[in-house]
């Protein structure tokens, strides 16, 4: 069957199936299991209403359980086992305890990925939030602010792969005898550089050139959230500060920023999560060569190049471990808000 047709059938089956499920299950509940008539009418209505919420959430629960909750447990289990292909072609999983972790901790490539990830974790959220805050503050004060905002926000719509191509052109290098076609080298030579450089192959620094791509994408996100927060600040506090003679910088740093601290933290943690999962940019631009490996790409390498599910799962668990503090913080905040 042609894939487009298959897609159409899937939409119809998926949407139709969902709607049919919800409609029919509600019908069965009300008409067959607990009909609201006869002598038990009252009790039946109560019972039906106890069950109904579960009919509504059931498909979502199944999907979430299977596609997100179960994998966490299963990955943990796989990280403690080794996949062995038997002589008859079947695969079994042998319990090996923490061997996978031990093996991983002995690999220099893993520590390189850890080091880089930690750099990413500090640099990308810091710069994205700072640029976002700057852009939010500046654009809120001018007439064409909304146009400027949508330009800075635009990279959000561009895929990591697309952004990788865009920035590869920026970092491109030609021999010194030719015209440079990459902006960075052209600028470098204009401002006193003697030899064009292959930026992505200079260890340690190349990480920052990769981070620039993500900062470029995430700044718009930070700007949108922070701009809304800035607008939510009560005017009175700002006016009072101005009356007391505060200059614009004092107003910004001493009055506005403290009042949106929580939002800044939210932006920071959201970008942190993105950073921990970053894969496409490194995969497309350097594939972890020249000491630019990161955890997510290391894991992909283990999984599909080395075909080592044990160590692959172990590295996935490391990513999970790094996310966990934010996960707990988010859940606690959400519960606080609901009360």
């Amino acid at each position, binding site marked *: 069957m042609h894939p487009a047709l298959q897609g159409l059938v899937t939409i119809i089956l998926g949407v139709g199936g969902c709607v049919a499920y919800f409609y029919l299950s509600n019908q069965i509940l009300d008409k067959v299991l607990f009909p609201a008539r006869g002598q038990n009418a009252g009790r039946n209505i109560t019972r039906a209403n106890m069950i*109904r919420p579960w009919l*509504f959430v059931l498909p979502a629960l199944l999907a979430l359980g299977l596609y997100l909750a179960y994998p966490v447990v299963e990955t943990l289990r796989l990280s403690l086992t080794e996949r062995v292909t038997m002589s008859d072609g079947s695969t079994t999983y042998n319990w090996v305890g923490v061997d996978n972790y031990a093996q991983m901790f002995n690999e220099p490539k893993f520590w390189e990925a850890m080091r880089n990830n930690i750099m990413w974790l500090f640099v990308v959220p810091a710069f994205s939030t700072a640029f976002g805050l700057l852009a939010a503050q500046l654009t809120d004060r001018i007439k064409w602010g909304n146009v400027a905002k949508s330009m*800075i926000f635009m990279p959000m719509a561009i895929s990591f792969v697309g952004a990788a191509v865009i920035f590869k052109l920026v970092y491109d290098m030609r021999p010194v005898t030719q015209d440079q076609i990459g902006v960075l080298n052209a600028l470098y030579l204009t401002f006193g550089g003697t030899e064009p450089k292959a930026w992505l192959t200079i260890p340690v620094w190349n990480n920052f050139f990769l981070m620039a791509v993500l900062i470029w994408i995430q700044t718009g996100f930070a700007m949108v959230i922070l701009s809304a927060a800035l607008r939510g600040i009560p005017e009175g506090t700002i006016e009072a500060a101005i009356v007391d003679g505060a200059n614009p910088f004092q*107003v910004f740093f001493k009055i506005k920023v403290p009042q949106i601290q929580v939002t800044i933290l939210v932006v920071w943690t959201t970008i942190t999560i993105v950073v921990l999962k970053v894969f496409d940019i490194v995969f497309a631009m350097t594939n972890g060569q020249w000491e630019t490996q990161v955890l997510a790409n290391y894991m992909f390498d283990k999984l599909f190049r080395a075909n080592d599910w044990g160590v692959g799962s172990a590295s996935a668990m490391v990513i999970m471990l790094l996310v966990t503090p934010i*996960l707990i913080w988010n*859940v606690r905040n959400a519960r606080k808000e609901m009360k």
Partner: protein
Amino acid sequence: MDSIAGSKSSLTWAVNISVVLLVALWLFPTVGLLVSSFRTSDQIATSGWWKALFPSVQNLTLRADAPELQVREGDLYVIEGDLFEVGKDVEISVFGVSSRAIDAFKVGETGELVKGGDITVSVEGHYRMTNIEPFEGSRGQRIFVTAKTPPEFTLDNYHNVLFDPSNREGMAKAFFNTLTVTIPATIIPIVIAAFAAYALAWMEFPGRALLIAAIVGLLVVPLQLALIPLLKFHNEIGIGKGYLGAWMAHTGFGLPLAIYLLRNYMVGLPRDIIENAKVDGASDFQIFVKIILPLSFPALASFAIFQFLWTWNDLLVALVFLIDSTGETTVMTKQIVELLGTRGGNWEILATSAFVSIAVPLAVFFAMQKYLVRGLLAGSVK
């Protein structure tokens, strides 16, 4: 505000200029790729794209007409013609007839051909070769010129990437594959999530708070954890790699955000409407379909845009769950990564392919930015 802020006009200027710089910095890389996608490979390789908007000085290698076209004028054998299309605004400064001396003669001077004879070249590219002996050989004389040529743009790259059926690296198929992945993967989670969000927002049942907390937790679970277990699961139930697996994976991964966004929105709907409907005897199913769903349109649109952008731009899920060894189901992101590896220097192909894949999300972005912003504001966990 500005009037009380005692804002001096110099400060306003500084703000305006800063924003201009910031916007320019953010747009510059993308514009570079866009401009490059309209240039020929020669142009891209010889000059930076920022020069494409102005006339550029280039060294070109051209060929005169073949000797068989020579004519006799008195004692002389003559080959005459134009190096550029007539009417094109070029300006030749120097020329040469050997690759070792490409700037041997100035325009207007009479140059000597290596095998005997003379040549003149005019500023706009008219050349005239004369010799007392007949010209020999099958191919025309090579002429090296240094010329100032006007900016030139072409649609050939797009034609080549999108419509050339013999181009196996083309994007046409990948474009449709991406579309095939994206649409069901956007619609199905919305339906599932909407029902769940309604229950979590407006129905009382034990465990509700726990479920909401669990969904907030699942929002940040990294995709990476799901790869191996689900690949294993898909292989065990026999769907292996393919569209079905990709649709299911995208649905599962999109659900937490969908439920979270929709629930937050539905909770904010006025209680009166729902209670009145209940008093009038409407069932939960009816309330959901007839009241909640239409009212929740902005939130549905927000999520739909997120999910669309995310599935369209995705690489990881496609690599793991969709693309098998035949490569029949390749998507655009994968295709571009492939090109980056094999055609790293062919910027005309890369830039055009990248832009084909970027164009659709950009259009969606500019058309529906309002909903995207709204969704972001509602979706960031406060």
